[in-house]
Structure formats: C-alpha cells, structure tokens
C-alpha cells in the first residue's frame, strides 16, 4: 500500500495533536511521556504550566539538552540528556512510581504495538525473543489518571494497530482513554471506541478498512487539526 502520510509528518502530527489535548484543558497538568513520538509532545507544550515527570526520578523535566548542555547524569527515562525547569525536583525510583501509582500524574502518553476495541493495550514487549524488558509501562497505564496512546495507524507491514483483540502480550486491560494516530483521534467513551477526528487524507471508508477495531463515529466528527 502507499503511505497516506509520510512518517515524519505523521509523527509530528500525532505529537502536536496530543499536545493540543493538554493545551485545551488550559490548566496545570503533570504528564509522563514515553519514548519516541510521546517525547516529541514536549516540543509543543512549552511555556505552559504542564510539568513533565520522568519515572527515573524527576519532576519538571525541561527540553532535550543541546550539545553543550549535556549532563550524563541528567536524563529522561528514554536515556536522553534533558534540562531542568525552575522548581524541578529529584526523588528516588520508589517515590517516583509512588507518584504514578498514587494517581498524582494526570496523563501518560505512550506508544503501542496494538490497542484493541476493549481499550486493552499491548506495548511492553514484542515476543520475538530479542526483547526482554517492561520499563514503567504497566505502572503507568494502571496508575496515570489518563492514558493517551500516540502511535502510527499501521505497522511497517501495513497492518492495523487498532485491532479487535490484542494478539501481543497485554500491558494493561481497559486502561486506554485516547488513541491518536496520524489518521484519526479515537476516544474510549462508555467502553466504546469513538472516532472523534479524521485526517484529511482519508475517507471514513478508507479509515474503516485500515482499522481492524470496531469503532463508532462521533456525531461531531471533525478533521484533525493540530
């Protein structure tokens, strides 16, 4: 199949659209960002009272460090060198996950291999024998108040990532609240997957074909804007 939205454009769109999710709330928020597209959200929330928590023990994570700012002992959970923001603080890993498990983090933004129509998410391991790690994924999806998945709509092989039932090992059950892809924005509402926004590149018919999961279409369906 042909790519509907080029990779880099897709990634930026997803990150910006998720950023809007926070900006529109127009209030103080604490969020945790996974590696990849989720970390890119940082770029679009600058200057707002949105505090980034890194599960390796920091609240108030700043932007990625520039070449001349790198401190190997100041990193985010993706091992990237980062900077401080005023009023940031450091704490140990137990306290950090206490913050997460204790419902003090408003949202976690994470990637996924699969999300299914029950709101289950599979993102911790690709059981190909080459991975062996879980990270904070299970703690984050069960602990954060809101779980926002940011992922490209299809795998590199062109298969749907929004599926009827996850086939890969589950990270958390019925925990997902919002899925943002380059082709659509889906909310889980009353245990149903609801399409709220659709990309200009696709028709509803095409999106339905590219989405294995069953979803309903919002009466207020809009075009994705970032």
């Amino acid at each position, binding site marked *: 199949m042909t790519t509907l939205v080029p990779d880099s454009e897709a990634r930026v769109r997803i990150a910006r659209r998720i950023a809007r999710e926070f900006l529109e709330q127009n209030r103080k928020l604490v969020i945790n960002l996974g590696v990849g597209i989720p970390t890119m959200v940082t770029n679009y929330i600058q200057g707002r009272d949105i505090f980034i928590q*890194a*599960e*390796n*023990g*920091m609240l108030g994570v700043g932007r990625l460090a520039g070449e001349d700012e790198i*401190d*190997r*002992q*100041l*990193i*985010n*959970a993706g*091992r990237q060198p980062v900077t401080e923001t005023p009023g940031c603080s*450091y*704490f*140990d*890993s*137990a306290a*950090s*996950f*206490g913050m*997460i*498990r204790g419902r003090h983090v408003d949202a976690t933004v994470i990637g996924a291999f699969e999300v299914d129509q029950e709101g289950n998410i599979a993102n*911790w391991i690709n059981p190909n*024998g*080459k*991975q*062996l*790690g*879980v*990270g*904070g*994924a*299970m*703690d984050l999806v*069960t*602990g954060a108040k809101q779980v926002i998945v940011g992922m490209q709509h299809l795998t590199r092989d062109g298969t749907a990532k929004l599926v009827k039932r996850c086939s890969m*090992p*589950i*990270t*958390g*059950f019925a925990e997902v609240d919002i899925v943002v892809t380059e082709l659509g924005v889906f909310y889980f509402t009353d245990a149903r997957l609801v399409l709220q926004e659709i990309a200009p590149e696709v028709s509803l018919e095409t999106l339905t074909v590219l989405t294995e999961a069953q979803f309903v279409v919002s009466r207020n369906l809009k075009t994705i804007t970032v």
Partner: protein
Amino acid sequence: MRDQNKFLSIEQALAEIKAGSRIMIGGFGLAGYPEQLVEALAASGLRDLTIISNDLGSPGVGLGKLLTNGQIKALIGNYYNWNPEVAEAYAEGRIQVTLLPQGSFAEAIRAASVGIPAFYSAASAGTDLAVGKETREFSGRTYVLERAIHADVALIKAHKADGLGNLVYYKTARNFNPIMAAAAALTIAEVDEIVPTGALDPESIVTPHIFVDVIIRSA
C-alpha cells in the same frame, strides 16, 4: 551498620563480595551506577551472581560487562532492551531472568528496606508478568501481591558522603540508589566527594549513614 572504618579502597571493598551473591546495583541506563565498583566486580571474575538492577547497561558496557564475562547466574529487574545480550543469554538458557514492572520493582526493594514482606500493586494484574503471583481485589480492582526483594550486597552511587557516611545524590543519578542502600545486608557506596561530618544539611541528607557500610571514592 558495621563498626569498622567505612572508608576503604576499592580492593578492600570488593573483598567483601562473594561468588554466588545477590547483588543490587543502582543506576538507570548509564546514569547513577557505581562505575568503578562495577568495573572492579567485572575484573574480579566472581561468578554465579544474581544481579538486581533496573537494566544491564549496554553490551559490554557498564553492568553489561558482567554478562559478557559470564559472571551472571540470574537477573531480577525491569528493562533489558538496551542490552540485547540479555535476551540472547536468556533464550539460550544461560541465565534466569525475572522481570517486574519498574514501579513494582522499586517498591519491592523499598519494602525490603522497611521490613515489609509483601504489598499489593495494580501494575501487571492479568498480564504475563503476574503469572504465578497471587492476586486480590480491593474496591473492585485487581491487585498483585508483590514480595520484598532483599540482597546480600548493594553497590550504589552517591554524589557526596560525609565523615559518618551520610549520602546525598546528584540529579537523576539518584534513581534506585537510596532504596537499595537500605535493602541489602551490606551496602558499598561509590561517591564523587567526601566532605566533613556536619557539612551536609541535616534536612537534605537522603541516605542516613546507618544504611552505609563501606564507602569508596571515585577516582
């Protein structure tokens, strides 16, 4: 708390560790791990180690050396994707690996440090990582019973120690170090700097000295 002088050379510190030990090692990625202690442990050739750590560095780097050297019997930890040699060694049956969600792992180490044998966490309920673990409902939600994780030795990294052995840390190099310090029978801390007793603000001491048995200074 040991009685002897806490300030030892790295050779003296290493002499405290035996083959077959359960060893906690602080750090997250390459931040905040006790680099020289790990180098010395790798050079020691001590085998059959159970390493309890967040990750295992990178292939042949940091904690990764212990695996490359064949010193590891078992791993208890959280994230080994930064070091593909782990999955390989596990697939070939050369090592045992126990994975826990990072938060449950951290809390289980803290539990050991505070004398709590077990606690409940919602993380991993129903997933492959909860297979074989007890679960229980509280207020309609399913939780997993997690057991405390103890160790014979903790190798940690701190920023400064005072003369008694009180410790403070540096930025995200703190991570697992403070909880491990209190969870092992013997704690060896590698520090950047040693300051006089009284030089650290009593309000800001993160690890009180009674948790620290041996201190070595980073060269």
